[in-house]
Structure formats: structure tokens, C-alpha cells
């Protein structure tokens, strides 16, 4: 864990990360936000084909949870995974190209919004199946342990997945085998329309950790520093061979579940309240309070993010469409193609 300043009165993130890393984190949060706003705009203009699941409002969780990871470390992601991609260093242009269904996209137009991934950066993929990535993350951690790579896997999942059998099977096996995996639950209060109160027997999902004999903590998922503090500790524990942990980031998605959501299950007041707790200005304020950036720096970072997104959309628009006669390409690995 990067660490420089020892003053324990300072927030964790300020102590743990260099100004460069923190500025980069703020930029990534902007990139996630702008990427999703750009995607939403493209969708509304009919330029994008499928639906999408936006994580606007959850940027502190996705970027904060990936701060301690190297390219060797792995993540598994969810259907609401754009932020995780950016956190793991994905190229925004290739993300947008994938959104536009282009051959130049991360999945060469085969995956779309729900499967953007960059295995070369340790991102094993977003998943369209709720809970689909949980056992896979455990498998990646098993590989790291057997092969002695020292890599840690961060497994993102939502509150909905905590009621899938795969969640329980995965946590149990990770604990039994003491594997280097961190389960990060992004609890945004609703599995589609069903609230955690109506679906989950425990108050905090982190309490489930007790059943699998691993630490479980619940933090404010919109507080970048709180997220990094909890996840970084879990990553370190995993790296030290002490086994898995569960971190629950309490957060909120401003948008509906997907583009078909009409927001009938939550009130305008609730949405407004959470929009008032926007993690990005909070992060900017944290950095300004500690003289890491000025207000002008923040504006410049936002402008830079806007430019990257505009360039990415331009790149995506120019991309080649996949060839229709290659629809079955990539089903099998070529030398063994069926």
C-alpha cells in the first residue's frame, strides 16, 4: 500500500496516496460520470442499440475500490461495471467503440455495455448474470494462490447478488481455501425495484461475512477515502495470505436500473437526497481541503475528462463495423475451431 504521510488525523486517502494518484482518481471519477452521460445521450439519440446500466452516483465506490490494485491484480465486474473498467485503467475510446458495437471496441462489438472488459489489465469481465462473477473471482484467486503470483482479486457485486446461491458458495469456498479475494458489495439499495429491506434478512450485507468467517465492514460508498480505507485493508490482508474479506459500499444509483426503469419504487425526495451527496464534488472538496488541487485544477480536470470523452465518441463513431460473415468468429479459439 502506498503510504507517505503518517499524520493519523488526516483522512486515509490523503495519507495513503500521492497527490498525483489522487488527482488521477478524481479524473477517473469524472471519466466514469462523463462516459455514462455520453452513453446515455447517445442512447437517447438512438445511436446505441442495447440497454445499459448506469452507475452515475457510484463513482467513489468503483474508483476507490480499485486504487490499491496493479495490472497483475484481477477484478470481476457486474452489469453496472463501467466504473470498474475505468478504475482498472481501461481506454475510454475502446469502451465507447464497444458501446457503438464496433470492431474496434474492447469486445469487437460482440459484448456491448454489459461485457466491457480488458483482460490484459486484469479485468476478467463484467457479467450479465447477477452473481455470475463471484465464483469466477474465487477461481482467479485460486489460480493466484496455486501459481504464486501474489495477485489479489477484487470481486464487485451488487446488493441483489447477495441473495444468489453463487454468493454463498463463493464466499464459503474462498474462506475454506483462504484465497486472496476481496468481495466488494456495491449496495445501491435496490435490486432493480426491490429494496434490500424487502429482500435481505440482514440489515447490512457485510454481516453475511460472519457466516463465512471473514471480516465484513460497511462504509459510506460515496466517500472516496472511506472506500479506499476499507478496501485497501482487505487487499492487504489478501496479499498477506490471510484470506478473503467482504466490504460493503453503501451508495446509490441516480438513474434507473436500466433504460426501461420508470422509477416507480423510489421517491423523488430520496433520489434528490442522494444526488445531494454526489461523490465527485465531495472528492474534489477533499482534495482542495488538503491543498492537493485548486478549484481551477478541478475545472481543468473536468474539462480534460470532457475532451477525452468527446475524442472517445469520435473514435467510436469512426470505427469499423464488424463483418457480418464473422458472426461466429471467437466462439472457439482458432487453432481448435469447431
Amino acid at each position, binding site marked *: 500500500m502506498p503510504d507517505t504521510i503518517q499524520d493519523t488525523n488526516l483522512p486515509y486517502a490523503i495519507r495513503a496516496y500521492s497527490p498525483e494518484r489522487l488527482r488521477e482518481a478524481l479524473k477517473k471519477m469524472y471519466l466514469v460520470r462523463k462516459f455514462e452521460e455520453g452513453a446515455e445521450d447517445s442512447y437517447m*439519440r438512438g445511436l446505441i442499440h442495447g440497454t445499459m446500466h448506469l452507475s452515475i452516483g457510484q463513482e467513489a465506490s468503483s474508483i476507490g475500490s480499485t486504487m490499491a490494485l496493479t495490472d497483475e491484480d484481477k477484478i470481476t465486474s457486474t452489469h453496472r461495471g463501467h466504473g470498474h473498467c475505468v478504475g482498472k485503467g481501461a481506454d475510454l475510446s475502446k469502451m465507447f467503440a464497444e458501446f457503438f458495437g464496433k470492431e474496434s471496441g474492447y469486445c469487437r462489438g460482440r459484448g456491448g455495455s454489459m461485457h466491457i472488459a480488458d483482460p490484459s489489465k486484469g479485468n476478467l469481465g463484467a457479467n450479465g448474470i447477477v452473481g455470475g462473477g463471484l465464483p469466477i473471482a474465487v477461481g482467479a484467486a485460486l489460480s493466484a494462490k496455486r501459481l504464486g503470483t501474489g495477485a489479489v482479486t477484487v470481486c464487485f457485486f451488487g446488493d441483489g447478488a447477495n441473495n444468489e446461491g453463487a454468493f454463498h458458495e463463493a464466499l464459503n469456498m474462498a474462506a475454506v481455501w483462504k484465497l486472496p479475494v476481496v468481495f466488494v458489495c456495491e449496495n445501491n439499495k435496490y435490486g432493480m425495484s426491490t429494496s434490500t429491506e424487502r429482500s435481505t434478512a440482514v440489515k447490512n450485507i457485510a454481516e453475511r461475512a460472519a457466516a463465512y468467517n471473514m471480516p465484513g465492514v460497511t462504509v459510506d460508498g460515496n466517500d472516496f477515502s472511506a472506500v479506499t480505507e476499507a478496501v485497501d485493508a482487505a487487499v492487504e490482508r489478501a496479499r498477506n495470505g490471510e484470506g478473503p474479506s467482504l466490504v460493503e459500499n453503501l451508495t446509490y444509483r441516480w438513474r434507473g436500473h436500466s433504460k426501461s426503469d420508470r422509477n416507480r419504487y423510489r421517491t423523488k425526495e430520496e433520489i434528490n437526497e442522494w444526488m445531494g451527496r454526489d461523490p465527485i464534488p465531495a472528492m474534489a472538496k477533499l482534495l482542495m481541503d488538503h491543498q492537493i488541487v485548486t478549484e481551477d485544477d478541478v475545472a481543468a480536470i473536468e474539462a480534460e475528462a470532457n475532451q477525452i470523452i468527446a475524442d472517445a465518441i469520435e473514435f467510436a463513431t469512426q470505427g469499423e463495423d464488424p463483418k457480418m460473415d464473422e458472426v461466429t468468429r471467437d466462439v472457439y479459439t482458432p487453432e481448435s475451431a469447431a
Partner: protein
Amino acid sequence: MPVEVIMPKVDMDMASGKVMSWHIEIGQSVEKGEPLFDIETDKAAMEVEAPATGILHHAAPEGAEIPIGKAVAWLYAEGEEVGEQPAPFAAVGGDAAPAPEPAEALSDDSAPEPGSEPEPRPEPEPELAYAGDAEGIRATPAARRLAREEGVALAELPGTGPRGRVQAFDVREYLKGLATPSAPATFRPETGPLHISRSKGGTGTPVVMIHGFASDATSWAPIESAIKHRPLIRIDLPGHGKSPKLRIRDFAALVKEVRAAFDGLQLDQAHLVGHSLGGAVALALADTRERKVSSLSLIAPAGLGPQVNGEALNGICKATRAESLGPWLRSLVADESLITDGYARLAMQARSDANLRAAQLAMADALFPDGVQAFDLRAALGRIEVPARILWGKSDAILPWSHALQAPGRVALHLFDGVGHMPQLEVAGEVGKILRAQL
């Protein structure tokens, strides 16, 4: 620059939406994120928030249907000059609208799109040239393949498979039979009425058709479509087609059998068409049943002179396989390419019954002894008064076309250059037209 307010896509399959109501009046201001207008799609209604803070202008009328991604209004900043509407509202089905529904495009009564090629009507499937693949015959794929390759008509084959299904075995046995015919059986005479087949449909005076020697009713197929407006009645000569193999001792006996069949039809009136030997029979029939005959059309008729190509008749009768039949069949036509190997195989198949061949050989011997026509109908041609015409190919190698020149002046002559003994096959279109004009 004013901010464009667009019709958002809110459903995966949404192409356009309707502006139901505006939450503010034109000229009023709205904060970004406040509800600005309601839309309705096929599925549901929903509220759309303002994309920016500003003053509403150029709002689409309530009820307007706007394609997704197209402007429904513009938001102007405080103090910004409001001029002309920056762009007209896009219409659903306008420039960018998708092509008309296929159902409309295909509907018969809709006018074709300007500049678009009219959809060519599909050509009707030509009828299959041979009956081998006729529908309704139970045969295995392998049997069908073999039959197709060998030019065998499945309909003619007995099927030994379950419920009479023709199997590859049956085709092979049949082909074996063609290759090694049983020794020419002594002719076993049969008895019974002549076989008659009728076309479907047609009105008015029927047409009675009598085929030539060594042929059968299928020889009329090429011209039937031209005259199918009349009921067509085909008589198979004795020992031909599906008629019984009667013993025919002379021409009179032949005419007697055909006349019995004709009388059996109990027609008030009929047009008679005959080819070659059938022409002679038709002429003889007309001579004795003149009141019932509306017209007489003779195609390369026999009976108008002594000469006949006896060698060809004999060769046809004796051939037991397609390879030996083919050359004789080719002598029937001027353009030999009309007689393909497949045609010869089909013809041979129709002659696969040794008893049929023996019956025809016996008849040839009775009617054309020593290669001479042993009957003479020139007097009959002089007698009949029904409208009559003779059609003949000037390259006929079986019966000399010059026999036609003996016809009296009231008989019309149609003589074709470069046509052999089978005008109804060789120039079917011409023959069809001539016949149709008379029917």
C-alpha cells in the same frame, strides 16, 4: 446557442414518441433536471427532465409525434436572442423514416414508389417435363435420385417397399429389365375397350385426339396448353399407351375399334385431331361419322399414298433399349437435338412392356406390310365436307409431305420448312395456334 431538447429513447424498441404535455409555458424558464414535458410511447407514459437550465422556446405542439433523438424544443439562456426555430420538427415517416412496411410494398393495389422498379411477378414454375418426379409417388430419396439420373419415370415402377414405396432396388431391377429384355414374347392378345383420357376443364365442343403409330396420348402434351379451353379427349390406339393389346388384322379393324370408342363417348359434336396413323384413323372416322364432326385436323396423316418409312417403324418397334430406340426416334424429327438421351429413355420406358412392343410389331405388319401403306384414304379425303386442314413438315422422313398435295382445294394446307414428322413437337407453338383458330 440554445440547447436542443430531444425526444429521448426510453424503450429498447422505441422509434418515436408523442409529446403529451409541457410542464411550463413557452417563455418560462426551467432548471436542469426539473420535469419539462411528458411523453407517451407504445408502452407507457413518462416524464422527461430538462437537459439544461433555460427558457423554453419553439416547443413542439402537444400531441406531436417525434422520432427519437430529434428536437422537440430549444432552451435559451437568459438574455439570449430568440430567432427563427433552429430547425423544423422531424416528422415520423419523414426523410429519415424507415422504408414502408413490407405489407404495403407488396400489396397489389398500392402504386409503386416513384422511381422504383416494379417487383417482377414470379414466373410460374414450368411444369416438370417428365413424370418421374411427379408428386404423390411414394419413393425413397435414393430411388428418386437413381430415377433422375437414369431418366426413369417413377410412376411407371412397381414399388416393393412398404405401402408400395419405390425403393432404389425397384429402379435397379427395372433398369436391369431394360438392359436384358426377355426374349420377344409371342404376342399375347388382350381384349377390352380402348383407353381414354380427358383433360381437366375446358368448355364447348370437345376435341378428340388420336395419336400416331408407336406413340401414345402423351405425344399431345406440347400443344395441349394452346387448346385447353376445350375439353380434350385422347384415345389410345389398340396396343398403344394404356389401351389393351388387341389383335388388329387390318386398317378396317383398327378403325372399327376407334369408332367404337368414339361412339362410346356419346358426343353430339367433336373436333377431330389425328397424327400420322391417327390422322388416317381420324379421316376414316370423319368419313363415317361426318355429322358429328365439327372439324378435322390431320397432322402428317397416313393413308394418302403408298410410301412409308417401314425401316423406321420396324426399328422403333424392335428397339429394346434407349440406345437402339434413340436413332430411330431422331429420324422422326428434323432437328435431332430435340431427341435427348433422356427423352429416348422416357420413350423406351413407355415401351418397356415386351407385349406392347410385340402387339405394335404385329400391327405394323398388318398395316404396313413390306414397308407399304396397305390402306388408301385419298377417296375419303375427297368426300368429306367438314372444315379440314392438313399440317405437315417438309422434312418428314417417315411419310412424304407431298402426299398432302392430293388434298382437294377446300382442305387447308400448312406446310413447315425444316420440320419432320412431329410438327406438334417440333413447332408446337405454330401447330397450337393453327388448331386453336379452328376450335
